[in-house]
């Protein structure tokens, strides 16, 4: 019974995660009329994860790590990975609980010309800080190249560390390829029959994301620039692309003419982990991704009545509460009272209480494990959000017994984090590709 429950919850989460993170379908070639491939994926605009926490080695700063481009296969040359030159990347911070960004760190990237192998994965970038209606360039940086292998990109650790730059006015920034710090057992929980023995809350799963990379932006921002009386900030990452619109108009003589205009539009956002994947219905995902967290009240029904809880009960009769899930609304939309609440405004933001000191012994289950410095009070690289999400949906916060059993058996990342800025590990080199036949 427990195995089945684990599998169901696991599949739902795995499926949802892959919906956004999964590799891309091949597109068709055109026949005699125009047939643009019907792809919907936009990997370079796709937010995969967001972390925000006070790091023990930099307790006076808020560390924010935002990742894009799911499932980079570093051995998939000659198609390497870069941030988009034509998109605009942002880390947004709300200081007063109105779910509108008070401080934005905006990133634009530029490719370099040059030889295919080393040169062209290095990108120059500009960081613009937008606050109180003013835009200030606070850093100009350079990304390290993709980690191709020891001959093309030797001493990768040094190459990566050369990609750390200071922010004007205090703080640090890094942008470039990183090992995906996200961890989950997608493979086993997908396969109902061969679910790995002894997983669940007992460990022993396989990290599907091992060996894959992402493109990450890391920021370290002095808390003095963000803190105020209630100490809680809300963080989300987002990506914008220019909308190119055809506009028709009539001239004075009544002739119809066409023009075009450009305007930035948000195409992706991420605050709390797995919201896009698990909470928001497929049909609304495009719209949800285009909106500001300030408008999230319209989605509250999907938090209060999560599809996932209903599905588990329908199939396996566990009696998990399906409705009135105000516990989930608190965790994801308002913050938990006494911990990181930002008032009544419903908004999907990753909320961090800046007055809570980093934990000396972090618990992977964060607040559920009694560690107030972890998710959902911000999110650390080591917080096991898949297990936390499974348990939370299963009613852990309501004291439901299923809330202690669940988990995907992967309790930590396959490689250690750096222990220093930019924290996420160096990407696995393409040459040392360890995935073999596991490639999806």
């Amino acid at each position, binding site marked *: 019974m427990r195995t089945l429950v684990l599998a*169901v919850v696991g*599949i*739902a989460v795995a*499926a*949802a995660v*892959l919906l956004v993170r*999964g*590799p891309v*379908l*091949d*597109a*068709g*070639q*055109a026949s*005699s*009329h*125009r*047939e*643009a*491939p*019907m792809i*919907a*994926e*936009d*990997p*370079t*605009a796709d937010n995969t994860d967001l972390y925000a926490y006070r790091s023990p080695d930099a307790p006076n700063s808020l560390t924010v790590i935002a990742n894009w*481009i799911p499932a*980079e296969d570093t051995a998939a040359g*000659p*198609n*390497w*990975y870069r941030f*988009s030159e*034509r998109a605009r990347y942002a880390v947004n911070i709300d200081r007063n609980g109105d779910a509108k960004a008070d401080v934005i760190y905006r990133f634009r990237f530029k490719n370099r010309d040059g030889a295919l192998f080393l040169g062209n994965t290095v990108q120059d970038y500009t960081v613009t800080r937008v606050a109180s209606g003013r835009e200030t360039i606070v850093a100009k940086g350079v990304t390290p190249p993709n980690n191709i292998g020891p001959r093309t990109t030797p001493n990768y650790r040094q190459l990566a560390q050369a990609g750390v730059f200071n922010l004007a006015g205090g703080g640090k920034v890094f942008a470039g390829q990183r090992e995906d710090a996200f961890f989950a057992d*997608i493979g086993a929980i*997908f396969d*109902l029959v061969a679910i790995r023995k002894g997983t669940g809350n007992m460990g022993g799963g396989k990290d599907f994301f091992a060996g894959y990379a992402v493109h990450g932006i890391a920021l370290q921002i002095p808390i003095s620039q963000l803190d105020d009386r209630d100490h809680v900030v809300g963080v989300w990452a987002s990506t914008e*692309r*220019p*909308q*190119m*619109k*055809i506009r*028709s108009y009539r001239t004075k003589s009544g002739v119809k003419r066409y023009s*075009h205009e450009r305007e930035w*539009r948000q*195409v992706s956002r991420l605050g709390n982990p797995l919201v896009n*994947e*698990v909470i928001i219905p*497929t049909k*609304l*995902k*495009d*719209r949800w991704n*285009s909106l500001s967290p300030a408008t999230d009240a319209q989605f509250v029904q999907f938090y209060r009545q999560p*599809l996932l809880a209903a*599905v588990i009960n329908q*199939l396996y009769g566990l009696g998990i509460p399906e409705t009135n899930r105000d516990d989930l609304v608190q965790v994801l939309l308002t913050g938990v009272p006494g911990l990181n609440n930002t008032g009544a405004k419903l908004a999907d933001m990753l909320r961090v209480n800046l007055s809570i000191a980093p934990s000396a012994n972090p618990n992977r289950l964060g607040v559920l494990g009694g560690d107030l410095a972890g998710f959902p009070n911000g999110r650390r690289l080591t917080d096991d959000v898949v297990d936390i999400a499974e348990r939370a949906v299963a009613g852990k916060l309501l004291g439901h017994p299923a809330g202690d059993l669940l988990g995907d058996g992967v309790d930590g990342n396959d490689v250690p984090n750096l222990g220093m800025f930019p924290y996420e590990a160096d990407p696995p080199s393409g040459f040392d590709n360890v995935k073999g036949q596991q*490639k999806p």
Partner: protein
Amino acid sequence: MAAIAATALLLGGALRIDDRASAAPTTRQLVRFGLRELDAARTGDPARYVRAERALRRALAAEPNDVQALIGLASLANSRHQFRAGLALARRAQRVSPDTALTHAAVGDSLIELGRYDEAFATFDRLSELKPGFASYSRTSYALELLGQVGPAITAMSLAADAAGGQGEAAAFARVRLGKLQFSAGRLAAAAREYRAARRAAPGYVEALDGLAHVAAARGQFRTAIRLERRAVERSPLPQYVGVLGDFYRAAGKARLAREQYELVGAIDRLYAANGVATDLELALFNVDHGIRLRESLARARRARSERPSIEADGVLAWALMRNGRCGEALRYSKRALRLGTLDASKFFHRGMIERCLGRNAQARLWFSRALRLNPHFSLVWAPVARRAAA
């Protein structure tokens, strides 16, 4: 990868764990299979359209409001050039899920081919407002190209190439379109650069081979052109590639080989028709261009235009009418074909021939030189005629 994609879509409607336990495929698996067959059919195996349709219909029978299946079937209908059926399916998808950007792409694609341009452009604008990205940029580019705005069309398509990210086929598609935009303005070197970029993005991408072959032919390098086009035909025996190969042989003075290819076009076409692909317009254009069965081809062109009243069909019908000596009626359709302001050297040339047929020689010369100024390489067969007539 297939399994993952299928799983990835599991959560879309309801989880169907029970289906997985049995041998019956899930809706997701059927949709996935159908879309893959559709892709394969498009690259030159028309029999797979039938398999694609069967799978997608089964999926829709299981879940009558499945957006992915509806979009897939709409796309399939469009591939078969059944654009009215495509529009009906796409509209259904749009009603089921108006916030899914791709439903607007599917609706707009059908509207374009039906010649309903204002509605199509408005639909593409809804798409780009909801979700700017590869799907919107590539369609906005096409709309701007139809409107004769080649520069902005190039801008939009280069945004599509960027948004393709690391997705080889999508990047190759955008690069090929950029190549064609450059070629249509007579810029051979720029076109070749884009086609080469397409090949780098997706090695063996057939349209890039075809594009490079056209550049080579435009430069008079027929051996290279023939070599490249033969590779395109081997990979993807679409009638238009076979016809082009025939043209290259003819230009290289190999009349017998050319004739063989031309005969093959008719045979392949019958194969498409047998698999439910309406090819009247394409075959009419080929036949009219090559002086084959002109009267029958005019009937085909009329039939095609009534099915698919786009400026493309207007243009083919105008050309077919002219070649059958019915130049008054041809002029009417030529004007329709050029009503959006599209910069298309072939359509300019056809207009010149119509004007000349109507005895308006000064007008005719203007259109011939417009065609040649825009793209002196617009047609291996007809550009020399235009040059003589413009002189």
